[in-house]
C-alpha cells in the first residue's frame, strides 16, 4: 500500500519532508492560526487592550441591546437567506432543464453574481428608495395601486385648526354647526400647493336659497399672504370637484353634492336641512406612497431579498450541474411506472440531489455569516441599528465610535464558533464522498 511507502519515506528523510511542509505551515500559521489565537486572546481584554476582563466581553455581547439585535438578525439571515436562495436555485435549475433558451435564462439569473456586493448594495439602495419618483420598488407598487384606485381630488387640503371643521378618524372633516337652508356656509381649506390650484376659478359666495343648503369650499389662502381668514377674498381659488355630504345624526348620508367650478354646492333643503355637513374622506385620501422598505420593520427582509437576488443564480448553477449528473434512466423508469412530474421531482430528483443541496445550503450559510457590505450600504443610517448583523457590529464596535476591539474580537470569536458546525458538516461529507 502507498501509505506504508510514504511512512518509509518520512522515516528515511524527515528533513526533506519538513522542508516541503514548512512554507505551507508558515503561511497557515501566520495567516490563520496566529490571527485566530490573537483574536481569542484579545477578546478577553477590555477596549484599551491593557486589562484582562475574562469573559466580560462575551457577557456584554449577549446582554447589550445592539449586539443582541445583531445576533437575532444574523440568525434570521442564516435561516432564511440560504434556504430561499437554494429553493429558488432548485426551482430555476429544474425548470430551465426543459426550456429552449435555458442557457440565456441561466445567464441572466447568474449575472448578478458578477456584481460586487457593494455595487449590488447601491443598486438596491436606489430600488428601495421611499420616494416613488426615485425608488423602483415603490414606483411599481404605486403604479399598480393607482391603476385600481383613483387619486383623491385634493389630497393636501386641510382646514385650519379650530375653524369649525373637525377631522374624523377616516380622514373626513365634519362641520360642527348644523346646516340650515337659506344660510350659505363657508368651508375654508388651506394647504394646497399653489401649482395644484392654479387651474381653478375664483371662489364665489353661494347664493342664499331657502329651498337649499348651500355653501362654498375654497382655498382660503391668498398668494403672498394677506387676506382675511374665513372670508372669500378676491383672488382666492375655488376647490372644485369636492364631495360634500349631509349627514344625519345616526351617521347616515341624507344627500351629497359636488362643488362646482366656483366652489359652491347646493343640497336640497328637504334632505339636508338640520343635518351636519361633511367633506368626504375620499376628497383627501393621501396619495399612496408605497411601502417603507428601509424602515425598521422591513429593512432586514428587504436586504435579504437583495442577497437572494445575487445568490440564487449561484445556487442554480451548482444545482443545474448536479441535475445533469442525475441518471436519466431513473427518471424515465419512474415516469414509465406512472409517476407524475411532481412525484418525480419530489421522490427522485430531490433525494438524488440532497447531498448537493446540503453543500449549497452550507456554503451559503457560511457566506451569510459574513454578510456586511449589503447591510452597511442598503440600510439608511436611521435604521442601521435595526438591520444590524454580527459582521457589521464587529466592524462598528471595533472601529466605530467606541473603538472597542475587545468586544469586536469577542464577536469575531462568536462568528468563528457559529461557522464550526457547518465546517464539520462539510468535512464529514467530504470524507463520506471519499469512502464511496
Amino acid at each position, binding site marked *: 500500500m502507498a501509505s506504508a511507502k510514504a511512512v518509509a519515506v518520512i522515516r528515511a528523510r524527515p528533513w526533506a519532508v519538513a522542508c516541503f511542509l514548512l512554507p505551507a505551515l508558515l503561511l497557515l500559521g501566520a495567516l490563520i492560526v496566529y490571527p485566530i489565537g490573537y483574536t481569542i486572546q484579545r477578546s478577553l481584554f477590555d477596549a484599551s487592550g491593557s486589562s484582562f476582563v475574562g469573559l466580560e466581553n462575551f457577557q456584554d455581547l449577549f446582554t447589550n441591546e445592539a449586539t443582541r439585535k445583531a445576533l437575532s438578525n444574523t440568525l434570521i439571515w442564516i435561516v432564511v437567506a440560504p434556504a430561499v436562495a437554494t429553493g429558488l436555485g432548485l426551482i430555476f435549475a429544474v425548470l430551465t432543464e426543459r426550456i429552449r433558451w435555458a442557457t440565456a435564462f441561466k445567464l441572466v439569473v447568474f449575472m448578478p453574481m458578477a456584481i460586487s456586493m457593494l455595487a449590488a448594495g447601491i443598486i438596491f439602495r436606489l430600488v428601495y428608495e421611499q*420616494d416613488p419618483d426615485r425608488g423602483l420598488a415603490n414606483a411599481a407598487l404605486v403604479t399598480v395601486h393607482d391603476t385600481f384606485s383613483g387619486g383623491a381630488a385634493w389630497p393636501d387640503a386641510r382646514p*385650519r385648526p379650530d375653524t369649525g371643521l373637525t377631522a374624523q378618524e377616516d380622514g373626513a372633516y365634519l362641520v360642527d354647526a348644523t346646516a340650515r337652508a337659506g344660510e350659505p356656509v363657508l368651508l375654508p381649506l388651506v394647504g394646497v400647493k399653489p401649482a395644484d390650484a392654479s387651474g381653478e376659478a375664483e371662489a364665489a359666495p353661494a347664493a342664499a336659497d331657502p329651498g337649499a343648503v348651500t355653501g362654498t369650499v375654497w382655498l382660503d389662502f391668498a398668494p*403672498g399672504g394677506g387676506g382675511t381668514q374665513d372670508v372669500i377674498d378676491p383672488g382666492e381659488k375655488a376647490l372644485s370637484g369636492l364631495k360634500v355630504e349631509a349627514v344625519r345624526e345616526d351617521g347616515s348620508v341624507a344627500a351629497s353634492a359636488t362643488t362646482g367650478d366656483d366652489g359652491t354646492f347646493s343640497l336640497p333643503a328637504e334632505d339636508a336641512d338640520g343635518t351636519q355637513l361633511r367633506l368626504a374622506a375620499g376628497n383627501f385620501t393621501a396619495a399612496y406612497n408605497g411601502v417603507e422598505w428601509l424602515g*425598521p420593520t422591513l429593512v432586514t427582509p428587504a436586504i435579504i431579498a437583495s442577497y437572494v437576488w445575487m445568490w440564487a443564480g449561484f445556487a442554480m448553477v451548482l444545482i443545474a450541474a448536479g441535475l445533469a449528473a442525475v441518471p436519466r434512466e431513473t427518471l424515465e423508469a419512474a415516469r414509465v411506472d406512472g409517476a407524475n412530474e411532481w412525484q418525480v421531482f419530489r421522490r427522485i430528483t430531490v433525494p438524488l440531489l440532497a447531498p448537493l443541496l446540503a453543500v449549497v445550503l452550507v456554503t451559503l450559510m457560511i457566506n451569510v455569516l459574513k454578510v456586511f457590505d449589503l447591510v*452597511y450600504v442598503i440600510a439608511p443610517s*436611521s*435604521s442601521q441599528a435595526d438591520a444590524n448583523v454580527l459582521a457589521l457590529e464587529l466592524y462598528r464596535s471595533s472601529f466605530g*465610535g*467606541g473603538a472597542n476591539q475587545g468586544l469586536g474580537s469577542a464577536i469575531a470569536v462568536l462568528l468563528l464558533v457559529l461557522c464550526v458546525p457547518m465546517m464539520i458538516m462539510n468535512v464529514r461529507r467530504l470524507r463520506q464522498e471519499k469512502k464511496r
Partner: protein
Amino acid sequence: MPSSIRGPRRAARAAAAVAVASALAFTAACGSDSDSNGGNGSGGGDNGGDHAPSIELPDLAGQSLEVAAVWTGAERDNFVAVLKEFEDRTGAKVSFVPSSDNVSNFVGTKIEGGAPPDIVMVPQVGVLHEFAEKGWLAPVGPSVQEQLDANFGQGWQDLGAYDGEQYGVYVKVANKSLVWYNANSFAAAGATEPTSWQEFIDTAWLLSDSGTTPVSVAGADGWTLTDWFENIYLSQAGPEAYDQLAAHEIPWTDETVTNALTTLGELFGEDTLLAGGGSGALQTDFPASVTNTFSDLEAPTSGMVYEGDFVAAFIAGNTDAVVGEDALVFPFPAVDGDAPVVTAGDAAVALTTDGTATEAQEALLAFLASTDAARIWAQPGGYLSPNHSLELEAYPDQVTQDIAAALLAAGDDFRFDMSDQAPAAFGGTTGQGMWQGLQNFLRNPADIEGAQEYLEAQAVRAYGH
C-alpha cells in the same frame, strides 16, 4: 467628502459609505465647489494691502514648517493662501499635509514615527485635551497669547486650554444655529423671519397653509438631529445645564431634557410640517434636505432647512439658488431664554516632543491668531473666524456678515457642539448614542420617556459613569 459639510466632520466620515448612493449626486459638487474661491489661491498677499499689518513676524528664512489639516478642495486652497502670506512675510517654507478625518489616529502614528507635523488643526475639544494630556502639545508663547488676548473672547480661549494652560487657537469655526429658507416660499406665504420658537412654529404652520411643506429634517443623518436638540436645549435650559449635560453630570432623564424634547416634538411630532413626514425625514440625508429646499426654487419640497453656515457652500455648489437672494437665513429662534449659538471649529495647536515650541511654530500660531490671517482667509467665503477684531466687511457677502455678526454677538454665551464634546461612541456613531436616540425620537415623537431612557443608557455606557 466635500468640503462643504466640513462642520460635522465625524458625521461625514461615518456616513461616508452609507451615503454612497447619494454621494453619486454629491461628489459632483466637490468639483464645482470652487466657485466661491474665485481664483484667490495665490492673491493672498495682496489682501492686507489696505490694512496696516497687525502683527510683527520674525525673519525665518531657511526654516520649514509642516501644517496638517483635514481640509480639501476650496477649503484647502483658501488656507494655503493664508500660509503663502506667512511665507512671504517670514521667508519660511510652509507645506500643507492632508490629515485623515481621524486626526487623533493620524497624529498618534506621526508621533510614534518621530516626525509629527509642526502645526495640526484639531476639530474636537476632546481630542485637544487628549493630546495635551499625553504631552504632545506645546503651550502657546507670549506672542500668541498677545494675539489671543487682543482678538479672541475668553470663551474661545478657554476652549483651546487644558488644565489652565493655553494650547490651541480656534482659527476657523462654524455657526450651527442657523435656519435657511427659500425666499420664494416665504414670499408666497407672506411669512417673515421668526425670532422665537413659537413664532417659528407659527411660521411653519403658515407655510403649510400656503401649500409648502415647511421643514426638511435630515433624519437619516443623526448629527443634524443632535444639532436641533442642542440649539433648543442651550436656549431653553441655559449654558450651565448645557455644560453639565455635555459632561454627563446631569442624566439624560433630567427634566430639562424632557422639556427640550417636548419643544422639539412640536415640530417633529407634526407629520404635516415635515417633508415626507417623520418616516420620510428619517430617510432624508443632509444633502437631500438642502436640495429639497433649494433645488426647485418655485415649488420646493420644503421651505426651510436647519444647519450651520456650511449650508451656503452646499447651496452654491449643488443648486441654482443664489445665497443672499433665493436662499436666506435667520438665526435659530430663541426658545425660552436667549437665542442659542452652537458652534464647531478647528483649533490650531503646535505639536512637540520636548514640551516647547520652536520660534517658527510660535510665529505661525501667532500669525494664524492675527487679524491679518483671518482677513485673507475670510475673503473667498466659506469661512468664519471667532476673531472679533476682524471687521465684518472682510466677509464677501451680506449673508456671511450676518452669520459672523450673530456668532460674535453671542459673546461668551456660545457653546461648542455637544456631540463633538461627547465620547465618539455617544456623540458620533451611526446606530447608537445621541444619533440613534434622537432618530428613535423622530420616529416616535410621543415617546419622550423612551427616548430619554435610551439616551441615558447609551450615555452611561459611553461615558463610563
